[in-house]
């Protein structure tokens, strides 16, 4: 059923669980696995600070990706990792369409109401706009 699974990874505990769940599914279903992380710049993007954040995000995610690739390899699953820039929900939905994912797997962070009001919920936005099924891992 699911041949292409996309994991949205933001280095949180919940998204690490989401990766493990997706890896397990990919192994059982012989599906391809993609891991996407989104570097969200501060708004409005300020000079010098934005380039610094972008560099740090790439380095930070690359460390986690290394571990994920090792996990996937030992499970016999092919995994592709990438970092994109922008608003998390938009980039996840767009990349899901681009890589023709059948399923998006993401963690639920359960942020405060104030934070949700100010920044919006990424999982709600992805659920609203995703071109495929979405699994929220708690």
């Amino acid at each position, binding site marked *: 059923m699911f041949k292409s699974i996309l994991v949205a990874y933001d280095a949180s505990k919940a998204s690490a669980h989401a990766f493990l769940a997706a890896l397990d599914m990919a192994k059982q279903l012989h599906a391809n696995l993609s891991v996407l992380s989104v570097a969200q710049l501060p708004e*409005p993007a300020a000079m*010098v600070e*934005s380039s610094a954040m972008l560099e740090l995000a*790439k380095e930070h995610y690359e460390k986690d990706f290394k571990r994920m690739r090792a996990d996937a390899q030992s499970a016999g699953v092919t995994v592709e990792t990438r970092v994109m820039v922008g608003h998390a929900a*938009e980039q996840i939905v767009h990349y899901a369409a681009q890589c023709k994912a059948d399923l998006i797997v993401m963690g639920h962070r359960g942020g405060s109401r104030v934070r949700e009001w100010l920044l919006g919920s990424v999982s709600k936005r992805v659920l609203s706009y995703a071109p495929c099924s979405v699994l929220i891992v708690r």
Partner: protein
Amino acid sequence: MTHVWAQASLWLGLALVATLLSIWLRIATALSEIVVGIVAQLVLGAVAGTMALGADESWIKFLAGTGAIVLTFLAGAELDPKVFRAKWKEATAVGLIAFFAPFFGCAAVARYALHWSSQSSWLCGIALSTTSVAVVYAVMLELGLNKTDFGKAILAACFINDLGTVIFLGLIFAPFTVRTLSFVVGCLVVFPLIFWLTPRFFRWYGNRPSELEAKYLLLLLFGMGALAAWADSEAVLPAYLIGMVLAGIVGKDHVLVRRLRTLTFGLLTPFYFIRAGALVSVPALMAAPLVFIALLAGKMGSKYVGVYPITRIFGYVKQEGLYTTMLMSTGLTFGTISALFGLNHKLITQAQYSHLVATVIASAVIPTIIANAFFLPRYLLPRRTDDRTPGEAAPAPEPVAVAK
């Protein structure tokens, strides 16, 4: 020294609060530091007197000024010389239009609608003419346009726009005496020299724990800054130009850039942005809110007139063009630098400074809010599938890192 240490801890405490706010709200640290500066001055002014924060202490002015200089240098060093060489014609045309439209537009609003003096009006035009390279770059990355010819040309154009701002700021109020001539000649001699000398010097003596590179660069920035100030110009002008001249050398050295960023964000720029906020008079803003609205309308309107037609000429569809135009209306850092230059040189009053900084902040925040509310995700999501027509050639966003 007790007084100095106490004051330093107060300022760094404020910087820490601003940084935490920027992390929680995901806003730019510069923006949060300015707002914290405004609030701190308001509260401390009411509780302990207007001098409590000590924004005019000479050591705070020095750290703040150094912050502006080093930040401007790093901004100039982000230029990609290859892109600029390939696209300099388009970039110059677009950059000059994007600079001159708001420069004349906002100066006209200040002069004829608000009846500011001619010098104040020109300063207003400069402060509101800027375009944030960072904001445009972030948008380009989101839309996947950073690798296209159009994206590269627009990014290079943003550097030209800011160069226009810095050059006008540095020269329009200069007295054009022998000193001004000496400054220009000094630049013409020093820039080619450092372009030749710097890579060799770094190769011979660099990469040691004594941080020779940082000392060399600070010497250049302070030396040329002193020459600029002696000529009644502005120290950020040579700093930005030195950054651009050394972009292919310093910009490529990530370790050096990272060390300079630590110095800049960890110590220097908090003093600069908090001070910029502390000098804002909230009562002056409250007394004449229409001034702020007129300036904001002037900035966004003139950017629209200048930039939107260009995006259409280059093949942007309507919403994409509007989105880019709105985000090109932001210019937090150079806008603040210009306004503070005006206040320091008594070209504008504190009330005018307050209105300019408020406009600069609003022009950074409002377009982002509007763009997010009305153009995302409805604008991005449906269109970023493969159903583009040939005229809408924006490709999928490029990842910044991929591995298989």
